[in-house]
């Protein structure tokens, strides 16, 4: 550069004055530099353009295609759950529905206001949806309404442009024809939770309208029931407006599951339990098929499908009949006297002569202690048969001491008590069959005489669930090692024999027949069916000690549990049944239900007639009563009910409901007094013997002095 160049900080060395010509020259050179700079920017841009359009063309073409083509998944139709005859326990029905995708909603309040006007949503429903919108991750669709009629659906559809994020769809939704009757059996479905999505990362899970199995069989057989989603390819704008359809692939429905359940019987049993809190299990005595497995009260899986509403949740949470607990698999009860046929069978196996008798005077003195019979006036001379049909405690106290607990416990396990059966449900409780080794292991204490006494009358440490009781009934009836089966399998092998002598079984059967059809404790359980006789055994299990209540009246939760196991016909058993009624006040609450359920198997019309009579007294069938209760709650609390918990909290609450009765942490130190059997005169009112309750809080109490045995 020829220009005079001076550093600003150097001393000025007399610079030459710049002339106009110099400036022009400088301008020309600098303009050239400017032109070159512009040209190089131009080349840079051309190069960049070439790079984008040629080198990266494939990448950007793919990106453009994925922008243009919108793949909408069509939720697959879920596989049906059908009963043994093919009737639907869970089906699908076509419906119109409206969902919200929180990410795309611009003004949630305005959108909800418009929707609730168009769809006629109630205040509590609106609050529920707003809760869910707040909790949902942005991409999780929230159901606004389903089962809409065409008019409402169309009203939302035409207003779509002003309702971004609202997705009206026609699709299929899960439908349970018998509602609450199959709540615990089949489970329910619901929208996938964020955790589900995290686990699977399947876009189907966040497709509006898709439901995932949340409980029971729906959850266990999710994979099989789900099916393969269909897809609709559309060209859509960035705002989601569909420009044109590019093609549709049909969904592949999930595979059905056939259960051994008899839908009619299941529904009948659910309705017959009525206002009680309890369970009914019916099994086939030839195959072990579970024909009915009912726990009531229950929830209506139909209304769970769109999430649990606040009113519904309040209703379920406040119900002391724990509708969320599957009592068949998760309820543990002392079986009471229903174990006596089993105990008697163990006596026979051990070689006891069935005619060996004991004189029952209302109690039995062992050493310096007296163990009472439930009938304080005594049964007189009692052999095995009478011990069963009169449920004489003294007979069993006496011979159990001779035979020993180990033999009894072995028979209990052989007949299914304390056993785990492979049922497709999580969190089952299997109970306890105590024996000396178990007590030593568990508490480090010696087996005591009163432990045997307690166990032989189905109290103390002994805990069973209703399914095990049904298995016991079916094994007693058939002599076969039946396993409860829920999934239909036409090729299942015949169950092996238990190896019990038939004459022993015949003796037990006859005694159990006598319970119902003779001089026994359940005379009113006689079947009103010509030529079919039912054999059974009553059981009453105390809940609190006699010092708190007598078990029959008073506070509901202090009343005795009622049990009944039975099978019919007694001489050629086809069906076995176990009924457990929580706080029913004794076996009198259980056997009428067993009688009617059994009647249903032989004469449906007659059974229905009886049921309809009862339902008139109870205020309608299950659905009607639940609806009435819901309306009462809705009227009383409306939208002010506390928000329903989210999935995780609900699961926790259900789990808490399902926690089995804890085994006593401390060893029991006394005999539990037997609970009174219902058919004879009530226990004397002046009963003063202090008693230890067979509850976890069992406390030591001194044995009562013998009143003279």
């Amino acid at each position: 550069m020829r220009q005079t160049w001076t550093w600003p900080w150097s001393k000025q060395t007399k610079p030459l004055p710049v002339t106009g010509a110099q400036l022009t020259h400088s301008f020309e050179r600098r303009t050239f530099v400017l032109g070159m700079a512009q040209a190089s920017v131009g080349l840079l841009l051309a190069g960049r353009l070439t790079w984008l359009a040629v080198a990266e063309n494939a990448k950007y073409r793919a990106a453009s295609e994925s922008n243009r083509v919108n793949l909408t998944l069509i939720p697959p139709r879920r596989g049906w759950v059908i009963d043994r005859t093919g009737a639907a326990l869970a089906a699908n029905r076509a419906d119109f529905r409206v969902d919200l995708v929180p990410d795309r909603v611009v003004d949630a309040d305005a959108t909800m206001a418009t929707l609730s006007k168009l769809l006629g949503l109630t205040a509590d429903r609106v609050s529920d949806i707003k809760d869910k919108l707040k909790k949902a991750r942005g991409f999780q669709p929230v159901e606004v309404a389903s089962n809409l009629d065409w008019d409402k659906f169309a009203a939302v559809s035409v207003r779509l442009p002003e309702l971004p994020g609202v997705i009206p769809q026609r699709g299929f939704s899960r439908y349970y024809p018998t509602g609450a009757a199959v709540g615990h059996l089949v489970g329910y479905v619901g929208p996938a939770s964020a955790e589900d999505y995290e686990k699977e990362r399947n876009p189907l899970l966040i497709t509006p309208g898709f439901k995932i199995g949340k409980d029971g069989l729906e959850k266990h057989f999710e994979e099989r029931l789900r099916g393969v989603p269909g897809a609709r390819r559309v060209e859509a704008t960035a705002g989601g407006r569909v420009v044109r359809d590019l093609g549709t692939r049909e969904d592949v429905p999930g595979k059905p599951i056939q259960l051994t359940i008899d839908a009619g019987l299941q529904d009948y049993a659910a309705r017959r339990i009525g206002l009680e809190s309890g369970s009914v299990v019916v099994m086939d005595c030839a195959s072990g098929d579970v024909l009915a497995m009912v726990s009531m009260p229950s929830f209506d899986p139909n209304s769970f499908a769109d999430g649990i509403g606040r009113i519904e949740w309040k209703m379920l949470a406040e119900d002391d009949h724990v509708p969320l607990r599957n009592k068949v698999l998760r309820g543990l009860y002392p079986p009471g006297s229903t174990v006596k046929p089993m105990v008697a069978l163990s006596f026979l196996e051990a070689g006891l002569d069935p005619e060996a008798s004991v004189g029952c005077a209302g109690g039995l003195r062992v050493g310096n202690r007296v163990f009472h019979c439930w009938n304080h006036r005594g049964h007189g001379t009692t052999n095995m048969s009478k011990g069963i049909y009169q449920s004489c405690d003294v007979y069993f106290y006496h011979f159990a001491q001779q035979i020993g607990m180990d033999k009894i416990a072995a028979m209990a396990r052989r007949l299914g008590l304390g056993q785990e059966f492979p049922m497709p449900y999580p969190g089952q409780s299997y109970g306890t069959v105590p024996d000396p080794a178990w007590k030593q292991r568990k508490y480090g204490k010696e087996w005591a005489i009163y432990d045997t006494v307690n166990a032989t009358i189905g109290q103390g440490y002994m805990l069973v669930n209703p399914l095990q009781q049904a298995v016991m009934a079916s094994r007693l009836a058939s002599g076969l090692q039946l396993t409860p089966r829920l999934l239909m399998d036409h090729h299942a092998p015949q169950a092996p024999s238990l190896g019990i002598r038939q004459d022993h079984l015949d003796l037990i059967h006859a005694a159990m027949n006598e319970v119902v059809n003779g001089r026994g404790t359940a005379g009113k359980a006689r079947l009103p069916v010509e030529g079919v006789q039912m054999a059974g055994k009553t059981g009453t299990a105390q809940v609190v000690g006699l010092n708190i209540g007598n078990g029959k009246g008073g506070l509901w939760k202090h009343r005795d549990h009622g049990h009944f196991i039975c099978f019919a016909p007694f001489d050629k058993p086809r069906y076995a049944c176990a009924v457990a009624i929580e706080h029913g006040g004794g076996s009198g609450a259980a056997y009428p239900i067993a009688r009617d359920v059994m009647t249903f198997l032989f004469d449906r019309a007659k059974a229905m007639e009886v049921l309809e009579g009862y339902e008139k007294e109870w205020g309608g069938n299950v659905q009607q009563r639940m609806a009435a209760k819901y309306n009462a709650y809705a009227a009383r609390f409306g939208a002010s009910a506390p928000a329903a918990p989210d999935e995780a909290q609900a699961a926790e609450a259900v789990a808490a409901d399902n926690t089995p009765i804890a085994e006593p942490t401390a060893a029991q130190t006394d005999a539990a007094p037997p609970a009174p059997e219902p058919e004879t005169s009530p226990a004397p009112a002046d009963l003063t013997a202090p008693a230890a309750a067979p509850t976890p809080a069992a406390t030591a109490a001194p044995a009562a002095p013998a009143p003279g045995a």
Partner: protein
Amino acid sequence: MQRAYIPAFIARQPWGVILPLCALVTFGGAVLYSAAGGHLMPWALLHVVRFVVFLGMAMVVSRIPSAWFKNAALPSYALLCVLLVLVELLGRVSGGSQRWLNLGFMQLQPSELMKPCIVLVLAWFYSVLPPSEIRTWRAIAPAVVLLGLPAGLVMLQPDLGTGLAISFGAVVIMFLAGLPLWLFISGGAAIAVAAPLAFFTVLHDYQRKRVLVFLDPESDPLGSGYHITQSKIAIGSGGLFGKGFGQGSQSHLDYLPEAHTDFVFATMAEEWGMIGGFFVLIVFALVLRWGLGVALRAPDRFSRLLAAGMVTTIFFYVCINLMMVMGLAPVVGIPLPFVSHGGSSMMTNMLCIGTLMAVDRWSRTPRGALR
């Protein structure tokens, strides 16, 4: 050219720039027609009509003598500064930032007009400055004041893009006027130091975010990065020959934002491919080369600086817009001259063209004469 057969008025026009411009505007009209989904309204027709009107205006401007330009320099600059203050005050009153004055028949954006005006006033300043003063502070301080006032006002609005455009035009004029090189070198160094500081202090949050997202568009695919990402998808998916006229899915399905204004190049490149892109680049190269030629041929110091400044103004528009749509610069709201839909930018650019045509005229005719 066979002058004998062509009327003198027509033959006199600088066809070397008018014809490429007409081609470019027609092409732009076609792109806007497609962007509107195959309709002349609302963009394509208006675009062409505006060009014709402003071309007429440019031809009128081209007949204005050099002396008028010089005389108008300071008053128009002062007027625009007043208008900028007015806009700022109005914005304060109405709450929020405002960039235009509603004149009833059009919305006047004073900052837009300031781009050619800063060139005019600086060209005038250096033309009246004695050559011997060019190395002294007297050559720098007034220019810095002249630039600082409007640039500061525009950045206050805040309109970073226009502020930079004004500064860029002014700095190039200073460079061409012959200010010592060390000023620009040390100035560049100072900016390199100050830019990071300004980034954290002066810039508004949304501006800062734009810069950050420019550095990594995929970091915010649904927010600010969305613009750049979608623009690159549009250009890249066009390939060599494009998807065909009216077939651009990115623009037609609304994935491309501002498809008819700032990102019109992406709209074009999607349908016409790299070939269409090269056509646009070549037209701009022709126009800018012609402009620099005009500057070099210009008769005096004022017209030289004026012409070079006008070329620079157009160049800045083109350069920043194209770099932005191709992901080489952050998103700033600067349209592509002669292709983007928009009255203000069309007016500014045609004013520049008209001024260049005027300088071209002065170099062919006796100085200052009115023909």
